[in-house]
């Protein structure tokens, strides 16, 4: 069922700069980002509000262009992949809330087969199996028959993850999937991601505010530093790097540093 793990990492960036390009200027939010995510790894991206987490994730899944540098998926340049092929390699869960009038949760998951099904969207037996597998893997079997609009935020997130899994990706990218959730639902989503990485050998990149949970759950942590670079490493290594940087910079807190930068950014 799962694509065979290749020797090339699921995701690799080299000297990546992400941000926005206006008519006159280039405004980099993050620079010199060289990071790697491998099959079976749960990677957590940490950083304060406005530090560029979403911008980086959106760039990694080609929802916006990179300013500079390279992104490779399984050893293939992101720019060389068709959008159908990209959808088969990468599943995405975004922060934005999805409002659909009436559609059973299972039909939402079926939408994940877009890149596989034919012109009319008719599902083959193989598609149905993939959908079934995704629903099971996301622990959403009890939700499949229910109306998506009547699910709780946590249940919806589970269905959206199932939908991403139905794309049979080797890489899963989630932007603050626990943002709207209560404590129990947060714990459930984290446990699910941990399980998907370990058991299904997916590479998972997830951004979050839950620093403690992330440090406990993740194999690798990417921390956005005040100099707009990313420190990557095991949770312990990341902690050390953060400590050192902030002591050297002589700044009170992560949060304040970041807001300071955001102000500079806005002023520009």
């Amino acid at each position: 069922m799962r694509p065979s793990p290749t020797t090339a990492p699921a995701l690799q960036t080299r000297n990546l700069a992400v941000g926005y390009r206006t008519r006159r200027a280039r405004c980099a939010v993050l620079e010199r980002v060289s990071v790697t995510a491998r099959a079976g790894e749960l990677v957590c991206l940490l950083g304060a509000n406005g530090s560029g987490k979403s911008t980086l994730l959106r760039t990694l899944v080609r929802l916006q262009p990179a300013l500079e540098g390279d992104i490779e998926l399984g050893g293939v340049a992101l720019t060389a992949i068709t959008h159908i092929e990209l959808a088969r390699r990468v599943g995405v869960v975004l922060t934005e809330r999805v409002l659909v009038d009436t559609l059973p949760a299972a039909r939402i998951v079926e939408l994940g087969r877009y890149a596989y099904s034919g012109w009319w969207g008719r599902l083959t037996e193989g598609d149905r199996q993939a959908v079934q597998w995704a629903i099971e893997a996301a622990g959403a079997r009890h939700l499949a028959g229910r109306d998506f609009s009547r699910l709780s935020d946590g249940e919806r997130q589970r269905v959206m993850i199932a939908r991403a899994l139905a794309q049979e990706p080797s890489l899963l990218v989630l932007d603050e999937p626990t943002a709207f959730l209560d404590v129990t639902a947060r714990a459930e989503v984290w446990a699910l991601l941990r399980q998907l990485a370990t058991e299904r050998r997916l590479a998972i990149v997830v951004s979050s505010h839950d620093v403690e949970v992330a440090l406990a759950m993740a194999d690798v942590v990417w921390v956005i530093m005040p100099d707009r670079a990313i420190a990557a490493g095991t949770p312990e290594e990341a902690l050390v790097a953060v400590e050192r940087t902030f002591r050297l910079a002589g700044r009170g807190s992560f949060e304040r540093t970041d807001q300071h930068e955001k102000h500079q950014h806005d002023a520009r």
Partner: protein
Amino acid sequence: MSSSREITVLSGLVVLLAAAFLASLILGSTSVPLRQVLDALTGVSNGTDPVAIVVRTIRLPRALTALFAGAALGVAALQMQTLFRNPLADPFVLGISAGASFGVALVVLGSGLGATAGFTGALGLRGDAAITAAAVAGALAVLGLVTLVAARVGNPATVLILGLMFGYAVSALVTVLVAFSQPERLQQWAQWGFGSFSGVTWQRLRLFAPLTIVGLLMAAVATKQLNALLLGEHYARSMGVAVRPVRMMTMTGASLLGAVVTAFCGPIAFLGIAVPHICRGLLGTSDHRVLVPAAVLIGGIAALAAQTLALLPGATGVLPLNAVMALLGAPVVVVVLLRARRGTAAV
């Protein structure tokens, strides 16, 4: 794929559409018995029979026009509600009708023709084609403008209000044009503004029907893409949708449908906005593979019903179509607005 509920409801709608179609042939300034209607349709009755002539040359094209126009507006509204992810979008609200009116006005006033009962009646097929092309161009221009603003503003309510304002501004511009050209044109323009399915003759149907069918097919072949767009453009893109061409095609299709109806029948409000909600309510799904055929059927039924109701005063006169539409459609819009306040309105 389709549940039994969907099949049951869709079959019920087909029956209802047939009934509404027959009713619009039977009822009118004078009612014609069903038997005579059927005779006239099947050609049994003599060609000189005045009743048969009324049915064949007036009521049948009028009913077909209502059917096509209703289907067109319903499907165009469905496309726009999904594309803008806005339960209150439709061709009238977002200024397509106004843009189309502007195109129509420019051609009609520019050519100095069109002084007949239907504002655009006596131009012949070539005139119709020119008017329709101008209407589509005007509709696309306004929708393009609204889309540009929507990309910058984002907030659906603001986009709707801006669309309405564009629509009013363009309509006012048209009224000024008409008023300055010839005094009697204003009366005709006002008449055209009431909306009517009666101005489309058999000859004009030869252009109206195929254009409508092309627009409907453009929606029918994109149901898979429209379904993916239910989750928003970003999710759609992440699942493999080529969003830009799909959006272009959907906007062109919706503009074509809205503009063609406006060119031939006048700007018709409320029909479009209400139809997708009735479809979703009756069928209990947001799946476009079900909703597109449902919007064709329910749009047709609603237009035929409104047309028949407009003729109910009988010999004393005809109600403006848009007045009937507003009476039927406004309650639906109110319900949607109330749901939107509770945060549960969606497409």
